């Protein structure tokens, strides 16, 4: 099924490719369904890794391997093989193992948890060898297909980080796949840091922390206000996003501990570190009452990076989108792209289709635009293969 056929270098017309790729419709959609129905919370992606490994095996990829970080990789050897290209998709989803991952297929849409982020990306990765075969494209460069683990939250891109630190082939250019949004063109990364502020009562110190002053929840709310003040001062160059607050379990039970998660983002070099130091100082010096403790833990960092809007790879991606009649929108990334750019690897993140309700139980993707997304990916990949992006 996946035997690669003779080479044929066309002029790369994405419009022709888009039509030809409809022949793979059911195979691609079935891969979306199957990838979508496998739970893969951060750090527990093993079953999805197995799925991708099976697909790579069926397609006859070389060097299929599971690394120590749990990433799954396989290679399509190039005709020349002097250069190596990377296409990656993160495997983990924001949903837990016990959430219902049933996918529904309707007329023109699919819906289900994690389809946009990032089951569609994983499905396209699984189908890419067939896509190239269908279009009779043999790349000169080796093509590494990589499903990465531990992308979200405390995972802190551990999968991609491990791969880049230990890759046996230097990567010449890379493409990261995200399910939505078609037209997304990410070629820069924001500086970013993630932190957690923990507030807790020492063991046995207080049965009712609220009795002696402001309790855990109130203190966390105070920290939110303080973060907002810092953000107002730094805006618009930098932002502080409050991701979640956890404390308490009911009306009449005073919480003994709580946590506030936040993320600092900035396009300006050095700003993230400076703001992080300010928050650390704030946490250390805020008076929170007897028997309670506050601490700060920084759990993830990214450096800002930028390929530049005039980079040939960016220009080509934009022109391809124009040819397909899709409006491009530039969106700096804080995900895997940041690590690639940080290493000086010309890289992009592209979205594959249109979607809605991202990160909600009714997350949905449109089916028809997927073929525009595939044509775009193939076009960019062929451009990378010609060695122009570096």
């Amino acid at each position, binding site marked *: *099924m996946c035997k690669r056929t003779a080479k044929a270098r066309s002029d790369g017309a994405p419009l022709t490719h888009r039509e030809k790729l409809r022949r793979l*419709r*059911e*195979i691609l*959609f*079935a*891969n979306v*369904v*199957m990838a979508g*129905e496998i739970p893969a919370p951060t750090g527990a992606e093993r079953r999805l890794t197995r799925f991708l490994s099976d697909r790579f095996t*069926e397609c006859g990829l070389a060097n299929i391997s599971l690394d120590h970080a749990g990433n799954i990789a396989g290679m399509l050897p190039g005709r020349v093989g002097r250069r190596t290209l990377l296409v990656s998709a993160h495997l983990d989803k924001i949903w837990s193992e016990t959430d219902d991952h*049933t*996918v*529904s*297929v*309707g*007329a023109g849409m699919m819906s289900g948890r994690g389809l946009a982020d990032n089951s569609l990306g994983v499905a396209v990765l699984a189908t890419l060898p067939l896509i190239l075969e269908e279009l009779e494209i043999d790349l000169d460069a080796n093509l590494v297909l990589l499903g990465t683990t531990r992308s979200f939250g405390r995972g802190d891109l551990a999968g991609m980080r491990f791969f880049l630190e230990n890759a046996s082939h230097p990567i010449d250019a890379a493409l990261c796949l995200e399910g939505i949004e078609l037209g997304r063109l990410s070629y820069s990364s924001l500086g970013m840091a993630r932190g957690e502020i923990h507030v807790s009562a020492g063991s046995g110190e207080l049965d009712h922390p609220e009795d002696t002053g402001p309790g855990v929840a109130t203190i966390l709310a105070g920290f939110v206000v303080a973060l907002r003040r810092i953000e107002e001062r730094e805006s618009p160059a930098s932002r502080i996003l409050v991701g979640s607050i956890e404390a308490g379990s009911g009306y009449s039970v005073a919480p003994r501990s709580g946590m506030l998660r936040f993320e600092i983002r900035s396009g300006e070099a050095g700003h993230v570190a400076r703001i992080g130091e300010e928050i650390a100082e704030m946490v250390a010096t805020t008076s929170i009452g007897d028997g309670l403790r506050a601490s700060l833990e920084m759990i993830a960092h990214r450096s800002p990076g930028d390929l530049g809007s005039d980079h040939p790879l960016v220009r080509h991606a934009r022109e391809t989108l124009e040819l397909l009649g899709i409006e491009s929108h530039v969106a700096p990334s804080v995900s895997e792209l940041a690590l690639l750019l940080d290493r000086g690897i010309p890289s992009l993140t592209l979205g594959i289709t249109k979607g809605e309700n991202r990160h909600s139980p009714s997350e949905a993707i449109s089916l028809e635009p997927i073929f525009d997304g595939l044509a775009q990916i193939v076009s960019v990949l062929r451009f990378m293969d010609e060695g122009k992006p570096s």
Partner: protein
Amino acid sequence: MSELDQRISRWLETNTFHHSEFWDMQELVRAKRDAGLTISLCIPTLNEEKTIGKEIIVFKSELMDRYPLLDEIAVIDSGSSDRTLEIAASFGADTYLSSEILPQYGSKPGKGENLWKAIHQLRGDIICYVDADIKNIHSKFASALVAPLIYRPEVQYVKAFYDRPLAVSDDLRPSGGGRVTEILVRPLFSMFFPELTALIQPLSGEYAVRREVLESLPFPIGYGVETSHLIDLYKSSGLGAFAQTDLDNRIHRNQPTSDLGKMAFGILQGFMKRLRDYGMVKELPDLHGLFRQFQAEGHRYEQVTREIFEEERPPMITLPEYRERHGR
């Protein structure tokens, strides 16, 4: 251990499979080709727009495009008012309205009618029936049912069974059927056809059958179709004609108890008829066809009645149109 117990135990050992035994799809496709078999998948539908698209995508991708095990995928519809047929066709299934197949014989309501007409419409030497309301669909729902028919020429009829999400303790799995199976069909089988109790889920809607068997069976058009099949084939060929495959897990719509009552009533009608036809009871009175349930509103109790008549279609082989179409 009685002789009956031993026969059941032997059958469970030799004719009960787990889907993982058929993991090698290339080998299965090769064996199918070598045996010169064709296989049709039939999905009977009535307003299944929420689940039909996914089933078609998965079966077509995995069992036609990737591994050419199925020769056709057909949806036989009872007249859906939603977009079931449109969605099924858009993903590559052949779609038919049950009423337009053999129209000269009229159209009757009921899933059994669709299954019966599929025998005429579809071409396969094996027909695999799969219900349309499966949420966790996987290609094994068809491949692991046709596999015993491909590898074992003496097997005629393969039933699916699954885990049901009840309490599980130690290594014992809750290998029971649904509610109607456990409180109606299994007690009846235990009394009259004890060997058939070895079928763990006799009412499951997923099964694969050879054409020679299907065309020779009468078809109750309603709830009794599965039970009647089992009894008729058992009486003609014995337990050795059956096999069953464990598909691990099936998630589907749960039916309200009132609907299960109607199902049980229909099954009992077919069952009684067979007891009489096979001379297993001396005499039965005329059986009422009105199923009575009650609903309470305050202190008022109201009868809710429904006429349930398990009409049967004759064996397909008796129809000249069928014999001509299929060269029988």
